[in-house]
């Protein structure tokens, strides 16, 4: 298993789109820093995220999401929230980390 991390807004770079195009079934994706904007409902990336979640698990770093004025209510359903300890767990549970900068 691989942990894919995305830390840039999907509107700023195509990192999230490329990540989700190349992610394999069963992999984990973590959105953090400005990457968390991709986890929010109602953006033009919502369908892409929802589709990706059929084969892989998507996580969002909650402190980064909340810092930006987003609440759990605005999180796309199915995305799991993690705290910093959860981030560390993801890193240790996966065999490698692929950072999409």
């Amino acid at each position, binding site marked *: 298993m691989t942990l894919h991390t995305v*830390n*840039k*807004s999907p*509107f*700023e770079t195509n990192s999230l789109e490329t990540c989700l195009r190349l992610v394999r079934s069963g992999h984990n994706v973590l959105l953090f*820093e*400005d990457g968390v*904007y991709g986890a*929010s*409902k*109602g*953006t*033009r990336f*919502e369908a892409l995220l929802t589709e990706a979640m059929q084969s892989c698990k998507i996580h969002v770093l*909650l*402190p*980064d999401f*909340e*810092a*930006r*004025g*987003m*609440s759990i209510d605005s999180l796309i359903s199915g995305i799991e929230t993690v*705290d910093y300890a959860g981030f560390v767990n993801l890193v240790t549970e996966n065999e490698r980390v692929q950072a999409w900068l």
Partner: protein
Amino acid sequence: MEEDGGVTKKFLYVNRRAPYGSIYALESLEVVLIGAAFEQDVSLAFIDDGVYQLKKSQSTDGIGMKNFSPTYNALGDYDINKIYVDKDSLEQRGLTLDDLMNLTWEDENDNYAEKPSISLVNSEELAVLMEQQDIILSF
């Protein structure tokens, strides 16, 4: 130029980055506030991820960074009340005007009535606005 040497120019600050992920948003705000002391004709535009700077309910307790969003509320006190938000950028992000902070200013020519500072603009209006400026600073 006026007799006392004061020159007023039209300044537009263009903000296109989200807060916290980089230093651009905070630095822009610092420059805007410093510039305000020179009594220039200042406008702010928020485009692309820049619209996220004005998102309500920012709470940075969990990330150990200063939440500088309340500072935008002070802009009205510095006579900065022309804040333009790109409607397309807002809509693409699933946001509406209600998701943004309610920034206001007091109109001293209208019995200090509190008025909204933010205007939603379309691409055409934004293009015209940019064309009217003497100086455009991008962040």
